[in-house]
């Protein structure tokens, strides 16, 4: 794997290798145990192991050890978003516009509900808005991993992935706009507030289009060779993550758009149904474990009550949005309620975003941090369980393999 440039410099990381090995080993065992004996998604095992080994618990992995893996995790996130983007079918939205309306409603209601709760616990309005915007996003990695593990197919699975892609895009735009706004409170420059979101949206889309064009050109050259396709896509996703980060664009938006545009213009279906396979699995294990490791579980008791209210408000908002247009969009109410449950997981990126926000803006006091952290912690465990439950209950899981 040494010719993969996105890997960290192993010489400096070699001292940590045993810990990474331990992490993978423990995660693999815990994942299988959870699957075999509890019949629950493996990723709960990965999360548990990460949380246990992390700096806030046993401390086998310290902050430095986590930081070394950062580029790898950035790539993993990019990979997940690219794959999710590929599942966004714009022609479906055109044929069934109620789906787009559903995504706007569920995101809007969830935002509104969380905003109100945060205001009620005395968060400054802008900070409350930023935190609520973070919460709009359903975790792409969780929805993809659970769906794939169950081999789920059907309206709940398809719509969960579509709505996740859309609400993640909204969330990242909203968070960027709000952070720009917060920045203005310090700098007093209004131009940034207007230009920043425009730069993010257009810049990310243009970048995505360029990468999509490059990918499709390469695919035409390679034909339907699965191995070669796989290597090219891994390389281009890594490059796209690097390019969007370097240009201060939104990695999430750019990678989602990269996936979506690649699919739209793949008119001759050159893409052999692409999956990131074993490499993807290792990266996902690391992603879930390390995200859980970073979480400050110690803050949970302090913020549990208000965090619980926040979680409930978010769920109520999403459920209302999904229910409102279910009949119009062709979804029976039973499946609509399961879809609302499936959208519960909160993005692990929320943790990163929250840390960034808290570092930049001191008004984000410890009380508020505790509330947000406990909400994230609750959803970290509850989210995958609910998605798993929803897909199984909807009868969309492949029984033989679930």
């Amino acid at each position: 794997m040494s010719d993969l440039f996105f890997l960290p410099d192993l010489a400096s990381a070699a001292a940590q290798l045993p810990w990474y090995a331990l992490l993978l080993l423990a995660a693999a065992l815990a994942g299988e145990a959870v699957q075999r004996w509890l019949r629950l998604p493996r990723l709960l095992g990965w999360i548990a192991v990460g949380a246990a080994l992390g700096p806030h618990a046993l401390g086998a992995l310290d902050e430095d050890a986590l930081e070394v893996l950062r580029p790898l995790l950035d790539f993993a996130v990019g990979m997940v978003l690219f794959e999710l983007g590929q599942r966004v079918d714009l022609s479906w939205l055109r044929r069934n516009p109620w789906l787009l309306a559903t995504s706007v409603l569920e995101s809007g209601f969830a935002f509104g509900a969380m905003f109100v709760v945060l205001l009620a616990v005395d968060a400054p309005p802008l900070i409350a808005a930023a935190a609520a915007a973070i919460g709009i996003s359903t975790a792409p990695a969780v929805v993809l991993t659970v769906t794939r593990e169950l081999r789920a197919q059907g309206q709940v699975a398809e719509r969960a992935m579509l709505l996740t892609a859309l609400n993640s895009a909204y969330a990242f735009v909203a968070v960027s706009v709000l952070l720009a706004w917060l920045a203005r409170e310090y700098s007093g420059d209004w131009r940034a507030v207007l230009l920043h979101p425009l730069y993010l949206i257009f810049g990310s889309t243009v970048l995505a289009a360029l990468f999509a064009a490059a990918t499709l050109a390469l695919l035409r050259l390679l034909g339907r060779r699965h191995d070669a396709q796989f290597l090219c896509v891994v390389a281009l996703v890594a490059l796209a993550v690097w390019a969007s980060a370097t240009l201060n664009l939104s990695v999430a938006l750019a990678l989602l758009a990269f996936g979506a545009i690649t699919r739209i213009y793949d008119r001759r279906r050159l893409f052999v149904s692409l999956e990131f396979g074993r490499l993807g699995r290792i990266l996902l294990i690391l992603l879930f474990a390390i995200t859980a490791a970073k979480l400050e579980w110690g803050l949970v008791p302090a913020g549990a009550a208000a965090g619980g209210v926040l979680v409930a408000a978010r769920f109520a908002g999403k459920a209302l949005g999904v229910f409102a247009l279910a009949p119009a969009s062709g979804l029976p109410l039973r499946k609509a309620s399961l879809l609302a449950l499936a959208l519960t997981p909160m993005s692990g990126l929320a943790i990163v975003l929250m840390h960034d926000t808290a570092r930049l803006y001191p008004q984000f006091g410890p009380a508020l941090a505790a509330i947000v952290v406990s909400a994230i912690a609750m959803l970290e465990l509850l989210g995958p369980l609910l998605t798993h439950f929803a897909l199984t209950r909807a009868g969309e899981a492949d029984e033989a393999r679930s």
Partner: protein
Amino acid sequence: MQPLEFRKSAPLTMGVELELQLVHARDCDLTRAASDLLSQVAKRRHPGEIKPEITESMIEVSTGIHSRYAPLRAELQQLRDTLLEVAAQLNVGVAGGGAHPFQHWSERRIMDAPRMKHVSQLYGYLAKQFTVFGQHVHLGCPDGDDALYLLHAVSRYIPHLIALSAASPYYQGVDTAFESSRLNAVFAFPLSGRAPFVQTWDEFNAYFGRLRGAGIVESMKDFYWDIRPKPEFGTIEIRVCDTPLTVERAAALAAYAQALARWLLVERPHRISEDLYLAYTYNRFQACRFGLGGEFVDPVAGTRRGIGEEVLATLEALAAHARELDSEAALGEIEAIVRQGNDARWMRERYADSGSLPDLVWRQVERLRAGR
């Protein structure tokens, strides 16, 4: 035990059942979508029936009873339009064709209904491998004896219907070299092939009674014959056709069978005897393997010629009957299939063009929608 009662129906009426493939809009593989589609179809008014089939990736549409080609065709189009409207809303592709070109049978899931579960338990992997898609044509008969006469007379023409409808050259990701690979999946079942040579309904009941007494079958559903009597409808059911790529072609095939039946009943051109079956499996193999280019051996006359030529010659004999049945347009379409190639040929050409089986599947989806 009750003998089977053959309910009489108006002679030369017809009905069509089509099994259609449900495919994923992204990867074009079969997808489990039947329940989702049916829950939405239930809210719409449509003629005929739209029903679940053995797996979640299959759906069946069936028409009412028709005596004329034009209304049958119109009803099939309405059924298709209803189904495609819902499928568009749910982002599911619906395609014709006798088999999915690259699905893997082990991935299929059996529908959650007692009969389906029973079939799956009894036949094991055969049940899942049986994820193939056929067109069934019902022809009305006034009584059981006439039904058996028609069954044996039509059996000589089974290779025509196989070659005209063949639309399953690809199976499990490979070119099978067959034009209809679907029928090979049917032959694996113990009670497949031709019906026994019995000529009266009483004899048939005696035969059925013995098999039932021996515990081999419980109902007519346990027979997977190419043509079987359907006593509760008062019809014979021709089951050899692959689902064509368009419902329009399905209607034309039904009209061809109807005209054939009228000719056979009115002019009685063949003396019914076991001899008719002498070359049955050979001719059927030729039709599955080579389609319209296959060879047809007439066991009674001792002649041989191409199946395509045979169809053209038969069309001449049917012309007067087609006039009586208002189905000349349909027979024109049948002639066009012989001259321009069947669906299997179209599929091979599309694949040669793109080199992508998913792409081929999506073109099948588009072709069903366009009707051409």
